[in-house]
């Protein structure tokens, strides 16, 4: 029988183009903040997990588990340290692995980090590296790009459900409005609708401002067996549901390209474990790597009916004071998207929300929150449901 797991500490770096910070600086900073926040000394740690998508290409460094353990000061403790990869869902997946290790009883306290240093490469290397999450032989080889594949989803979504270019842009407007309130965000500023609508086309119908940026950043959380959590913190947050699912690597391999079945299945598993329904969620951080991705996410997670994601944006039900506030952090769009860090940062944001420590972007009376982290174009997905205890 699995035991309950709680989050007892979180840490996050500023996201953005952090020219003076290296890969190891970033993850060590986030890890230290998480340990400090958790109240543990550090010697209690049983294991370390780190999610990162492509350290090999971004900084020419593999063997990242050991590196992070070393630079976080745990080399002399010789704790197991491992890196987890699932493209942009690497962070969320690392949290899930950490969760399993504690839930299983093998470990009592583990730290889970997520990190990406994306600005140490030149030219197209950052976008080329992100594209390694696509099917290299049957998508990328033929000229498909990351935004291009999401754009194809948008084209079909617009065709099937009447979703509009304006509705897509409004996702960015909302997330930038939220990001303006987040001290960690890469773009701490609101952007008006007109500016998003007239940003240069990246891949029709998506403009540059429909896309999340290239970012540096890291986040970390400390997980602890729930029955021991109160030994370290007054405000533990329990992981009450976790779900993960996969799908065809290529977008074209799927029967319905307007749905991420990986999201549907990961969400279903997490809801079942938590014995909750979408209506029970007070706040969610979803994977809005492109504006269309947030529309897909809120549909596939069951917050709105399939096809009504665009209208939901118009009705403002996903704003900070809406029925289901989505991406209070600013999301990947405004907060930034250091890919490996994103899934962990989502957890950190929801923990802040459930603790009531989210400052200006605090969602009122948030008790239960959800995180949704997608790998590439939906070939993998991790969903977590958290509850304040």
């Amino acid at each position, binding site marked *: 029988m699995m035991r309950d797991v709680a989050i007892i500490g979180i840490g996050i770096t500023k996201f953005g183009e952090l020219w003076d910070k290296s890969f190891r600086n970033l993850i060590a900073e986030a890890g230290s903040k998480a340990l400090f926040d958790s109240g543990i000394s550090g010697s209690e740690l049983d294991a370390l997990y780190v999610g990162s998508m492509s350290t090999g290409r971004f900084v020419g460094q593999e063997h990242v588990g050991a590196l992070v353990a070393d630079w976080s000061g745990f080399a002399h403790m010789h704790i197991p340290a491992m890196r987890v990869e699932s493209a942009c869902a690497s962070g969320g997946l690392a949290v899930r692995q950490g969760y399993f290790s504690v839930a299983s009883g093998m470990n009592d306290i583990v730290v889970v980090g997520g990190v990406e240093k994306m600005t140490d490469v030149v*030219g197209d290397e950052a976008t080329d590296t992100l594209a390694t999450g696509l099917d290299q*032989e049957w*998508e990328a*080889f*033929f000229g498909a790009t990351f935004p291009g594949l999401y754009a*194809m989803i948008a084209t079909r979504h617009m*065709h099937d459900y009447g979703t509009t270019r304006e509705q897509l842009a409004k996702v960015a407007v909302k997330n930038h409005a939220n990001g303006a309130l987040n001290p960690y965000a890469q773009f701490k500023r609101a952007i008006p609708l007109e500016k998003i609508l007239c940003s240069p086309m990246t891949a029709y119908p998506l403009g540059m401002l429909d896309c999340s940026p290239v970012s540096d950043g890291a986040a970390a959380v400390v997980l602890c067996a729930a029955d021991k959590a109160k030994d370290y913190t007054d405000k533990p947050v329990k992981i009450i549901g976790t779900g993960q699912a996969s799908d065809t690597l290529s977008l074209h391999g799927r029967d319905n390209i307007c749905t991420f079945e990986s999201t549907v299945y990961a969400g279903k598993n997490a809801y079942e474990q938590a014995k909750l329904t979408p209506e029970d969620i007070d706040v969610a951080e979803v994977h809005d790597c492109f504006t269309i991705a947030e529309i897909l996410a809120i549909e596939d997670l069951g917050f709105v009916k399939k096809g009504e994601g665009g209208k939901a944006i118009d009705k403002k039900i996903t704003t900070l004071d809406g029925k289901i506030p989505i991406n209070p952090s600013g999301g990947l769009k405004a907060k930034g998207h250091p890919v490996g860090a994103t899934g962990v940062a989502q957890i950190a944001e929801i923990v802040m929300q459930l603790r009531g420590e989210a400052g200006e972007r605090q969602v009122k009376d948030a008790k239960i929150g959800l995180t949704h982290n997608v790998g590439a174009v939906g070939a993998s997905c991790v969903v977590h449901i958290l509850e304040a205890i």
Partner: protein
Amino acid sequence: MADGAVPRFWREIPQRYNLIGNQCGSCMEIYFPPRESCPYCRRKSMGKMKELKLKGHGEVLTYTIIYTAPEHFEGQTPYPIAIIKLDEGPKITAQIVDCEIDDVKIGMRVQSTFRKIQEDGYIGAIYYGYKFKPVEVK
């Protein structure tokens, strides 16, 4: 991604030049690119996957116009790329050529054509394969 060693591209020539897929001898489902075994029949399909040449006719399911392209495609921007449902069933991602960008529409009938897909700079190998063009109506 044209920077890999040549064998990586060379071994896919049958698929990329001639749309060679395969068919499960158990449930008759057709796959492109060819699969080792049928995802639905699994054990029953072992040794029964038969090579099959797809005709290269299909319909655009969705599309985009790429304005920001990877290095090897920059000279072609803006270019349309689509997910095409082939008449035999499989769906593939490919560029749409030989038409105006505004002519690309969901539901349009297309057929395969042979084009240069990428080249490894000015000195590396050239990689050919399928793109699709509007069906030539007779």
